[in-house]
C-alpha cells in the first residue's frame, strides 16, 4: 500500500513535468503541438550522446539537452507554426508529420533498437519498504523544483505575466503593449526546454527508443484535457490522478493495462465534461 503511494508520487511528479511544456503552448498559443513528444526524444538522445557516449559531465549534458530543446522549439515556431498562423488543423497535421520526421531522423542516426540510459544518479534506497532508485527520486525532485520555478516565473515576473495576458486575450494583450509574437516565441522556446529536460528524466526512468514520444504525448494530452487548459495547479493535480491510476492498474490489475485508464479518462472527460474537470481557467 505504502509502496503504491510512493511509486505513485514519484511517477506523478515526472508526468507533471512532461505535461507542463505542452500545457504552456496550448494555453498561450492555443494550438496543439503534436510534435511535443519529439522534444523528449531529442532531449533524451542529446543527453545520451553527450554524457553517456562522450563522457561530458551529466549536468552539462542536461543543460545542453535543454538548450537544444529550446532551439528546436524556437525553430518550430518560426518555420512551422507562424507561417500557418491561426490554422489549427494545419498546425496539428504538420506537427504530427514533424514528429514522425524526428522519429525517423533518430532511427537514421541511432538505429531502431532501444538504448538503456544509465541512471543519472546511481543507487537505490528504501522508502517505507519500497525500493526507490535515486534516479527516479532525483527526477521527481528535479521536476518539482522546475514546476515551482515555473509557477513563480509565471506569477511574479514581467514576462510571465505577459504570457498570462496573451493566454487570456491575445488582442487585448497586444493593445496593452505586449508583443504576442515575442511571447509566443518565448513560450515555444520554454516549452522545448521543458520537454527536452523531461525527456532526459523520462528516458532514464524507462529507456531510450525512437518511439518514446507517443506515450508522453498521450499523457500530456490527458493532463491538458482533464485538467483544463494551462492551469499549473490543475496540471499538477491531474498528473497525480493519472500517475496513481497507472501505478494502481499495474499493481492491482495487470501491467499491460497501465495506459488503458488514461485513455478511458480522456474519452470520458471529453464526452461528459468537455470543459475539463477543473474548468478552463487560464494559466
Amino acid at each position, binding site marked *: 500500500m505504502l509502496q503504491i503511494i510512493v511509486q505513485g508520487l514519484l511517477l506523478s511528479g515526472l508526468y507533471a513535468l512532461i505535461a507542463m511544456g505542452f500545457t504552456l503552448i496550448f494555453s498561450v498559443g492555443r494550438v496543439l503541438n503534436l510534435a511535443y513528444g519529439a522534444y523528449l526524444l531529442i532531449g533524451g538522445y542529446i543527453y545520451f550522446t553527450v554524457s553517456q557516449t562522450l563522457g561530458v559531465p551529466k549536468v552539462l549534458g542536461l543543460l545542453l539537452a535543454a538548450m537544444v530543446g529550446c532551439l528546436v522549439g524556437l525553430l518550430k515556431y518560426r518555420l512551422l507554426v507562424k507561417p500557418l498562423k491561426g490554422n489549427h488543423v494545419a498546425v496539428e497535421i504538420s506537427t504530427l508529420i514533424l514528429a514522425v520526421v524526428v522519429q525517423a531522423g533518430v532511427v537514421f542516426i541511432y538505429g531502431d533498437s532501444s538504448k538503456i540510459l544509465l541512471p543519472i544518479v546511481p543507487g537505490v534506497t528504501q522508502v517505507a519498504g519500497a525500493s526507490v532508485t535515486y534516479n527516479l527520486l532525483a527526477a521527481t525532485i528535479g521536476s518539482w523544483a522546475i514546476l515551482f520555478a515555473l509557477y513563480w516565473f509565471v506569477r511574479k515576473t514581467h514576462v510571465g505575466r505577459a504570457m498570462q495576458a496573451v493566454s487570456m486575450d491575445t488582442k487585448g494583450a497586444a493593445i496593452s503593449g505586449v508583443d504576442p509574437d515575442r511571447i509566443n516565441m518565448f513560450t515555444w522556446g520554454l516549452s522545448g526546454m521543458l520537454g527536452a529536460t523531461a525527456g532526459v528524466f523520462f528516458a532514464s526512468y524507462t529507456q531510450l527508443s525512437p518511439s518514446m514520444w*507517443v506515450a508522453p504525448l498521450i499523457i500530456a494530452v490527458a493532463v491538458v484535457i482533464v485538467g483544463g487548459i494551462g492551469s499549473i495547479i490543475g496540471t499538477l493535480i491531474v498528473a497525480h490522478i493519472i500517475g496513481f491510476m497507472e501505478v494502481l492498474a499495474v499493481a492491482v490489475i495487470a501491467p499491460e493495462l497501465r495506459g488503458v485508464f488514461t*485513455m478511458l479518462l480522456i474519452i470520458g472527460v*471529453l464526452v461528459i465534461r468537455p470543459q475539463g474537470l477543473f474548468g478552463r481557467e487560464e494559466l
Partner: protein
Amino acid sequence: MGLRWYHFALWAAFIAIMVAIPEFVSKGTLRIIIFANFLAIFAISWDVLSGRTGYISFGHPFLIGIGAYTSAILTKRFDVPIEWAIPAAVVMTMIGGIIVFLPALRIKGSYFALVTLAFMELTYQLVQVIRPDLTGGTRGMSGVQTLTRGALNGYYLSASLMVTIALSMWLLMRTQLGTALSAIGMNEESVRGSGLSTTKLKLFAFLTSAFVAGLGGAFYVHYLGSIAPRALFDINFLFTIIVAALIGGASTIIGPVIGAFFLTFLLEYLRPYLPGAERYFIYGLIALLLYMYEPKGIIELLRKGWHRLFSRHSVETPS
C-alpha cells in the same frame, strides 16, 4: 450532378490505365501497387469524413482495425465463410463509426482529434489483453484465409475494389449531399442556420467513412493473410493515411488516390537507399514541404499547371 464529357474521359482513362498496368510492370511493382490501392481506399475513407466535414480523425486505424479483426476472427476462429465475414465486418465497423460519432455531437476541432487518437491507442492496448485467444494478443494472427493467390489476382481484386469505391464516392460527393458536408467543414453553425440537421449529415459522413474503412480493412486482412496490432494501430500508419489524403488533395476523392500512389512509390524508391524506418525521414520531410507549400495538395498543383497551359479554356478537374 453536372457531369461533363471530360469527367467521363478522365474516368475512362483512369480505369483503362488501371486495367493496363499489369501488362507493363513487374510482379514486384504490382505488389507495391496493391498496397497503394489499399492505402487509397483508407485515404478516401478519411477524406469522406475529415476532408469534408473538418472533423479530423486521428483514429482511422481504429475503424480499419475493427473491419480487419472482425473478418479475420470470424473466418479463422469460427469458420464463417468469407462472403459472410466481410459484410459482418463492415457492419461492425459502422457500429464503431457510431461510437466515434457520439463525441462529435459535443466536441469539435482539436478535442475531437484527440478523442479519436485516444480511441486508437485504447484499442491497441485492449486488443492485446482482452480475449487473446481470439485476437492473437500482441502477436496478432497469421494464416488468415486469403481471397486470391498471386500478385496478378491480388492486383485485380484490390484495383477493382479501389476504383469502385473511388467512383461511387466521387459520384456521391458531387451531389448536394457532398456540398452540404463540405459546408459543415467551412461553417457548421451556418449549415444549421440554413435549416439542415448537421447531426444527420455528420452521422451519414461517419457511417460512410466507416463503411469504406471496414470494407478496405476486411479485404486488406484477407489479402495479407495476417494481422498484427503494432502495425495496424500505429501512428506511422495513421500518418500515412492522413498525409496521402492531404498531399493528394483533401475533399476531392481523387486527390487521396493520387496521394496514396505518390506516397507508396516514394517510399519504394527510397527503399534501396534507406532500408529501414529512417525512410520516413525523407518521406515525412517531402510530405511536410508539400503540405506547407500547397495545403490543397497535388491535385491543386495539377489544376494550376493545367490552367497555365490551357488558360483559355474553362477547366475543372474531377473534384
